[in-house]
């Protein structure tokens, strides 16, 4: 390794480290603030290390924000939405990529057109439908309106179009049906897209606020974002509890990102290099 290259590598790592620090700093401050006594959060200069960590803030957040119940509800609802979106997106994407059927292009445009309609526009209609179906204040009511997305179908179609047509033909010759080709060949090849879609649907389901608030009756079925907002406080000496709640609610997200890290990075760099 030449000296020149070593310098360049060092510089590159320095820049990357700096960028990583910038990204991590707000997260670090959130954790620190959750451990500071409430009044210390407003201290000047700001305290960047908790000399007397207030671990009980986490217990308070857990009980005051009903986070036990709310996290459980969020996990159930998010899992349903994620599974539904993956299933329906993969099936729809497969149909648009590999099958021939009448009005295929028109239907695809209709799918894409749903991307232009913000959730808020269908809010009332969804609420009326869910109520009429008797799903008000149920897990089903929380999840069903979000089980399919035009975005997911689009993403999976694009991913499946990358799968060589020849593979499809070869598999057909070997006697693979659609489902077997899908599960054995197409989905494994499109793993980065599946991972990206999984994380994306998790994020959007996990951060839902207004729908769960409106479609549930009371605390029993509410989800974690409502709990977080419930923790907002007028008393500055309890602000650390709000921060602790934020940290707790973000943990599942971190876990998910760690699980799907490989897929995500591959998804991001897919197509960047020829391989």
């Amino acid at each position, binding site marked *: 390794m030449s000296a020149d290259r070593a310098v360049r590598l060092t510089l590159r790592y320095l820049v990357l480290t700096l960028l990583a620090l910038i990204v991590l700093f707000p997260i670090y401050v959130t954790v620190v603030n959750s451990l500071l006594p409430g009044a210390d959060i407003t201290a000047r200069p700001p305290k960047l290390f908790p000399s007397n960590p207030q671990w009980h803030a986490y217990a308070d957040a857990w009980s005051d924000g009903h986070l036990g119940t709310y996290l459980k509800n969020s996990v159930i609802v998010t899992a349903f939405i994620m599974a539904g979106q993956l299933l329906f997106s993969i099936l729809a994407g497969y149909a648009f990529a590999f099958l021939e059927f009448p009005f295929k292009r028109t239907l695809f445009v209709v799918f894409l057109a749903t991307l232009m309609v913000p959730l808020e526009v269908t809010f009332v209609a969804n*609420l009326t439908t869910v109520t009429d179906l008797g799903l008000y204040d149920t897990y089903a009511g929380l999840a069903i309106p979000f089980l399919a997305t035009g975005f997911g179908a689009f993403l999976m179609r694009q991913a499946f179009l990358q799968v060589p047509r020849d593979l499809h033909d070869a598999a057909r010759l070997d006697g693979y049906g659609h489902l077997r080709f899908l599960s054995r060949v197409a989905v494994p090849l499109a793993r980065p897209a599946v991972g990206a879609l999984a994380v994306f649907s998790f994020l959007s389901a996990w951060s839902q606020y207004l729908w769960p608030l409106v479609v549930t009756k009371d605390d029993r079925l509410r989800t974690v974002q409502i709990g977080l907002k419930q923790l907002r406080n007028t008393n500055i000496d309890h602000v650390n509890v709000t921060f602790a709640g934020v940290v707790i609610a973000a943990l599942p997200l971190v876990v998910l990102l760690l699980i799907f890290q490989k897929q995500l990075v591959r998804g991001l760099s897919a197509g960047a290099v020829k391989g």
Partner: protein
Amino acid sequence: MNAPRRSRFGATVVAVALLAGAALVGIDAAPAAAKVAKCPLGALAQAKKPVEITFWHSMPAANEETLKRVTDQFNSSQSAVKVTLVNQITYEDTLTKYRAGLGTGDLPDLVQMATTTALQQMVDTQSIVPAAACAKADNYNFSDHLTRVVDNLKLGGTLIAMPFNVSNPVFLYNKKAFAAAGLDPDKPPATFAEVKAAAQRLRDTHVVAKAPFGLKSAPSNLEQWLAKDGQLFVNNSNGRAKRATKVVFDTATGRKIFSWMADMVRSNLAIVNSDQGASVYDNLFGIGNGNLAMTLDTSATLGTITQVLASGQYPNVELGVGPMFSLRGGGGTAVGGGALFISNKSSPAKQAAAWRYAKFLNEPETQAEWAAGTGYIPIRKSATKLPAVQDLWARVPGYKVAYDQVVGGPNTPATAGAVIGDYFGVREVMRNAEQSMFTGGASPAKALATAAKEANRVIAEYNKRIGA
């Protein structure tokens, strides 16, 4: 900064969509208050006990604790009514959920809403029993209540909701900075000119590091200063005699108010902060760290300020609280806060039970405990004599300033404040107008004229939507 803007856009779309939906499920034009409403008080005696009712509120954690405490006292003090609290997070979310509930049938028996933003819409839903009907049936007497608090909740002379939690804006300043600049720390400025002179003095003596005054780009600035000057915000006596059809603030007074704000900012005597999100506390922290010396904020923040100052982190700050200053001084601020609405979709027994609980929340003892626990103004004269309030005022004298503002000052449609159907929509317009002036370079007269035009459109759209 993409997310908040998106969500605000989202919220607006939801509001519009829900309004459209609400129109389909039964809001129509007839003024509900005009109908002869009945309050079935007798139903409670015949009902099977306890009658269980649900109360939707929007109190953040610290205030929620006090609300839980007084509600527990109510539940254990008698066996006829049992109240269950459900926290619907914010006033805005509560209104959204309530309107959605008109379609799904999931409604509370009693609901706490912001008086300013919700009064007209709640009437338009035709889903409430006017408090006046219950008061009449019960021979309930409001003579011990603060008159302006009660009048604030009247539409066309009818009391719509039961008063509950009241706050209003006060002038906050650092007495030590005033003293250092050679200003009298015990005499807060009362007019626009005096505030500007004080600001100039604070800057010339280099007492403040950034700017003397911290201003929020809040839509309520204009509402409050018009009220203080005895001027209306919308027509038809601020929408109280009849439904408002247009704004009336594009006047000489309105222009003076906008010009004063613009002038303060352009001559670097004031800096502007958002009235939404995390920056709502920036002006207070600015005073804390010596960047600023004065600001306006709601009396509801006094508790937090006192706590922070008590921690000893800000040795250079001594809190001064004065009445809200205005164009010419004097006058009264518009009353803000929340009130209790009884749903007419509930069974007669539940309506009667809701009234009984609302009455309990208005008891002097309850109000004293509520004020001490939350910092809201006690709305009963006799409550102020009780030790809880006396202690509070001794501890945080600023609270008394806020109370005096509601007790004193003329009682007119101007100080009662405006009543508008789509108040959130109008406020968004005012916020944009102030921003166009502070950061977009629009002239005060132009910003105000544009705001009037836009606000008229918002009001007309709402009135048309509900067929009024």
